[in-house]
């Protein structure tokens, strides 16, 4: 009984630290993602001490790619863990589904961006514009929904 409680505490800590890592990754993804537009220098944000790197498009792109790899690992981890360990006790909420769908949209359009940026792929200009707008659109809605969930304390899952 005692061992099981210790194990549960360890598991909760593990999940909690994974959540912090997820939030941190999403923050840096959003920060560097918006940095793909030439706005940080114009609006003095890169003048803030420690944020000078945000004005360098190559650096923000590299961090965005690294963050994307980390986000993919975290999302897969959370998903597999939910399906096998958690699903029996907790179910995904409506806001959880909404966030999941938006995240999927971000990931899929992001993957297409990565493919597009290789030399051998020449997507049509119309498709690239649609990709730009949909990636940005998914991100904006995702951030707004997360803000709503934060304010109104909406969870990804709830007890069945």
């Amino acid at each position, binding site marked *: 009984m005692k*061992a*099981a409680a210790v*194990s549960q505490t360890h*598991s909760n800590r*593990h999940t909690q630290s994974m959540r912090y890592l997820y939030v941190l990754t999403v923050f840096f993804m959003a920060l560097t993602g918006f940095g*793909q*537009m*030439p*706005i940080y*220098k*114009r*609006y*003095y944000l890169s003048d803030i001490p420690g944020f000078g790197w945000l004005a360098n*498009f*190559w650096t923000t*792109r*590299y961090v*965005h*790619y*690294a963050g*994307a*790899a*980390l*986000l*993919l*690992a*975290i*999302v*897969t*981890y*959370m*998903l*597999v*863990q939910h399906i*096998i*360990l958690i699903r029996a006790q907790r179910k995904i909420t409506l806001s959880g589904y909404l966030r999941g769908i938006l995240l999927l949209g971000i990931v899929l359009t992001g*993957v297409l961006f*990565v493919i*597009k*940026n*290789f*030399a051998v792929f*020449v997507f049509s*200009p119309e498709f*690239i*514009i649609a*990709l*730009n707008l949909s990636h940005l659109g998914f991100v904006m809605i995702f951030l707004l929904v997360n803000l709503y969930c934060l304010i109104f304390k909406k969870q990804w899952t709830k007890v069945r």
Partner: protein
Amino acid sequence: MGQDISRRTFLKGGMAAAAGVAAGSIPGAAAAARPEEKTQLATLLDISKCIGCGACVDACRETNAHKYPNPQKPFPKMFPDRARVSDWSDKQDVTDRLTPYNWLYIQHASIDINGEETELTIPRRCMHCVNPPCVKLCPWGAAKQLKNGISRIDPEICLGGSKCNAVCPWDIPQRQTGVGLYLDILPNFAGNGVMFKCDRCYDQIEAGQLPACIEACPEDVQAIGPRDKILQKARQLAKEINGYIYGEIENGGTHTIYVSPVPFEKLDAAIEKGKGKPHLAAVSDRMADANNLAAAMVIAPLAGIAAAARKIYNYTKKSN
């Protein structure tokens, strides 16, 4: 071999015949076969042939004049003040650098060749990279890469943020304030005009014609054709004159290939460089760094599954 393709042959529409001979024709001839639309076209510039007459610059300006900006004045006041006006409309006659009204110019280099001071002239314009950062990193998709390898900026969509200039290894796209889509959105707070650069006369090529700079050159400095053929010719020419190639590997490869009788390090040291005046230095593949992280993205979900599997295993083991 040794059989040139004339401009007349090209214009007459003897494309198929031209294509066959182009591969064997000497570099510098206006050997432009009209290949399939998907064929990536490159140009070869034989620096040793250029006499710096400026005919290519004049032809470029005349042919592309209808694409030049016609800004509305006064310009909208931009906030914050850091966003500066970039106005070339009163300096349209500037031809010693790249501007929104001058997409091609002649660089000069005084070089010591075999103890003799020699003046070399180099036509400079967009390199039309194989994997162009200006196109791939444009946040709006205003910069486009055509299937034939041409990079061009759509003036109807461009907001003039100048990111393409910031990521271009050669400082090619140049901004004109007071034109374009930004005027219809938030002219005071976002955007700053339109970026302009050489589009290698994409419309002329679509019509089966040569780019103006190639057509006008009296010395046949340039040749155009499929990139692999152009590279073959460049290597052959470099071998014949014991010369050097630029553009084959620079920034991962470009569709503009220069062949020079002197090393490009020497040329780079001798030319005037700066804003709107591109260098001739070595350039690593700028897109490659982040692209190499794509492998990490493929592995990442597997790492996530492995981490979850470990947790599930530990949980199951402790439960039992």
